[in-house]
């Protein structure tokens, strides 16, 4: 148990662990040195600027797209409303014309009926008198 504890606290007693820790340290030092000496700050700043610019451009494009899509949608809606109103008006006009035609036909029928019922032929006994009246009128 004591040996196990001392092993845990002293990696030197475990060759493989010591080797792994050494490799880890060397690796991290190499990575850090490369990252530190490289043109990271400028690169990062530029990358951030580009990322921000790209973000703004995408945002603007989306907003512009949204606005124009909204405009197109509204325009289409307005056109559809106008077309619907025109169709209704046309329909009403045709219905009114039909109604007027029917009324005219009914009136003509009525007049014809009245005509046929009211006007009668002169009886044969009254014919000489009718002729006299016609002669008076020509005179």
């Amino acid at each position: 148990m004591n040996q196990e504890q001392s092993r845990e606290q002293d990696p030197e007693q475990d060759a493989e662990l010591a080797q792994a820790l050494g490799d880890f340290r060397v690796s991290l030092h190499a990575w850090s040195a490369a990252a530190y000496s490289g043109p990271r700050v400028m690169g990062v700043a530029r990358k951030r600027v580009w990322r921000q610019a790209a973000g703004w451009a995408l945002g603007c494009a989306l907003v512009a797209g949204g606005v124009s899509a909204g405009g197109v949608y509204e325009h289409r809606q307005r056109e559809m409303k106008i077309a619907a109103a025109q169709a209704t008006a046309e329909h009403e006009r045709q219905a009114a014309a039909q109604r007027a035609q029917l009324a005219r036909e009914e009136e003509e029928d009525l007049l014809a009926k009245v005509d046929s019922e009211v006007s009668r032929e002169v009886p044969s006994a009254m014919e000489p008198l009718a002729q006299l009246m016609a002669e008076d009128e020509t005179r």
Partner: protein
Amino acid sequence: MATAQEIAAEEFSAVVTKHRPQIFRFLLSSTRDIELAETLTQECFLKAHRNWASFRGESSAMTWLMRIAINLQKDYWRNRRMQFWRQTRTNSVDLNEASEWLPSGESSAEQQMLAKERVGQVWKAVEGLSERQRTVFLLRYVEEQELSEIARQTGLSEGTVKAHLSRALGRVRAELGGRR
């Protein structure tokens, strides 16, 4: 004749030049993110600059700076855990990429491959450590600090540092054991 302010500025500048690489390395190993390590390093020295006048030299400048860096990375991990929905984006490199960094030296290709594998396993174990265990482990085995110095930097007792190290090493050993 230089003013006290100019002297302080020169002193601080010398401290930055001397300790910046080590602070950056510690933050890089803690976050595995070059961009973030740079940002936190800058923040660390900005904080140090603001408080430079109050630094009384009771500890070494390195101990003082490392304490600031430890707190910064602690805040970062806490924020990431608590506000994961706000900070989902991370630039951390994956374990394979982090393990690529091995100077070729004179070792054979096979030795290089084995070393890379071992480094990958240590990274994997480090990933599973708590924030405190990781900090103590990195300060001991990457920065090669003494236990007493780690205790000063982290504000923990030496006994606690030893306990964290022991657990961290246990993890690394278990990870390496899986390969055996």
